[in-house]
């Protein structure tokens, strides 16, 4: 049985990654799972300087999922390179760094700082719904997405994944813009903007009022968007949205994803990532599938 996948020339021992923001820089979950067993660890968003993030409450549970408005709190690229990256390099897994910024220059600074590091790929966060400047502003208009993608591609030494927002009218238009600008891969979906109100106190539950929704309740939306995007572009897609089992992951692969990421379900079960790897293998065994790549886009 072969679970290996290749994305933009990078080899992954299996198609299971972590979704940015749900796994820190790997350290917090290394108590629970052997990071060597993952295809990649995708880090929390990293900016050129430390970011404070949003006021609390930052998280809320909703039916079948959760809302978050962390606001991309991060210690900045210096700390990432000095502390977090050396930790991740102890493991036999790919490191994908999620890059965030307020301006194009911020993104480019992080991309350049990572150019001579052992990072496998860059994931560009143009889709976080919880910060006012940057982020999603670049990811909701095809021309600005094209512009930032092409500027990053000029500087980046590693393959570039553009992480797409579902909070658009037609995600395939965004996907095509990123592809045309030279993106090597896409990851999708980022969270869906939501809101929760405490009816007893008549207040917003999140200090930020809105937050990004994730978890099993968003999975059908994500599967649909991955399918539509896979029909529209040729570059590989990393699919995510409520994945909590091998069956969930296979659904994304069949829809056209070349790999998958586990996000909010890490919070529900800290062993989820490794259980998804084992679940994909169990499915392959059950159906006599030799190569996991045979599942990609194989929905009939």
């Amino acid at each position, binding site marked *: 049985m072969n679970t290996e996948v290749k994305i933009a020339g990078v080899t992954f021992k299996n198609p299971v990654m972590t979704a940015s*923001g*749900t*796994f*820190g820089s790997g350290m*917090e*979950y290394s*108590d*629970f799972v052997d990071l060597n067993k993952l295809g990649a660890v995708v880090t*929390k968003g990293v900016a050129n300087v*430390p*970011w*404070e*993030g949003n006021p*609390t*409450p*930052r*998280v*809320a*549970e909703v*039916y*079948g*999922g*959760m809302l*978050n408005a*962390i606001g991309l*709190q991060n*210690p*900045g690229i210096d*700390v990432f390179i000095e502390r977090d990256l050396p930790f991740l390099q102890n493991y036999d897994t790919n490191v994908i760094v999620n890059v965030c910024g307020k301006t194009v220059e911020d993104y480019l600074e992080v991309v350049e700082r990572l150019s001579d590091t052992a990072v496998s790929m860059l994931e560009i966060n143009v889709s976080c719904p919880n910060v006012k400047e940057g982020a999603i502003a670049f990811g909701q208009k095809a021309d600005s997405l094209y512009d930032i993608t092409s500027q990053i591609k000029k500087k980046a030494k590693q393959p570039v994944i553009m992480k797409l927002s579902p909070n658009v009218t037609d995600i395939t238009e965004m996907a095509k813009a990123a592809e045309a600008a030279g993106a090597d891969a896409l990851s999708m979906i980022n969270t869906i903007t939501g809101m929760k109100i405490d009816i007893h106190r008549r207040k917003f539950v999140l200090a930020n009022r809105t937050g990004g929704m994730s*978890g*099993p309740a968003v999975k059908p939306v994500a599967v649909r968007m991955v399918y539509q995007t896979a029909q529209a572009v040729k570059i590989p897609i990393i699919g995510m949205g409520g994945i909590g089992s091998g069956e969930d992951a296979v659904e994304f692969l069949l829809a056209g994803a070349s790999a998958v990421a586990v996000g*909010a*379900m*890490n*919070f*529900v*079960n*800290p*062993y989820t990532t490794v259980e998804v790897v084992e679940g994909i293998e169990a499915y392959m065994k059950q159906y006599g599938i030799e190569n996991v790549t045979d599942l990609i886009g194989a929905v009939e």
Partner: protein
Amino acid sequence: MAQKRKVTATVISQKQIGEQIYDLWLETKLAKNVHPGQFVAVYPHGESMLLPRPISICETDQADRLRLVYRIAGKGTAEFSACKAGDRMDILGVLGNGFPVEKAKGKRAFLMGGGIGIPPMLELAKVIGEKKQILLGYRNKDIFLEEDLAEYGDVYVATEDGSVGTKGNVMDIIKAYSLQADVIMACGPMPMLRAIKKYAAESGMEAYISLEERMACGVGACLGCVCKTTKVDAHSHVNNARICTEGPVFEAGEVDI
């Protein structure tokens, strides 16, 4: 510190001990090596509810029995309150730093608990060997755990409506009895913790306070449950510390509350 794990615990017993307050004993190997003030996160079974509920540890036998005393705050804790002996509960733990017990060595300590902040004071009272005064604040005569705590120190009770003990809150107990101590360990609602922080600063005392916040992961990954810190935090490199990991107990002067 013991490795964090998600385990399935078995309910030994559960009874209601106050209005919406439940006293739950669990059989679990997480009961070993628990520091007072640490917590576990308990998972609801209902699939619509995903996130574990952080609940402070009231007491442990440091072997295989863990006691949680909690208040029903919503659907998740309501589900827990229906659990009976023999039922299974998934829990994540042991989480957080706990109270710095060594700071009470050779000193007189106030242990101050307000409402559902009272339960962690029990394990703390057991572990601190020194003489301690235990100050408890409740809303009304519906009081709980005061008999358990009386085994380990001098207990003073305040109620908001004056139905039992001193009328007012834990700060009013200090005034009413002219109590004195060198160090404070406290858990309770934010107004109480703010009053303790102010009192400690004015009287030159050390105070260690346990904070709470909405949590998702419980293990320091999601950055959901941060509090503002007065200095740049060593992990985050900004003025935020993770309550689930650097906390829930902080020296009062370290946090901006």
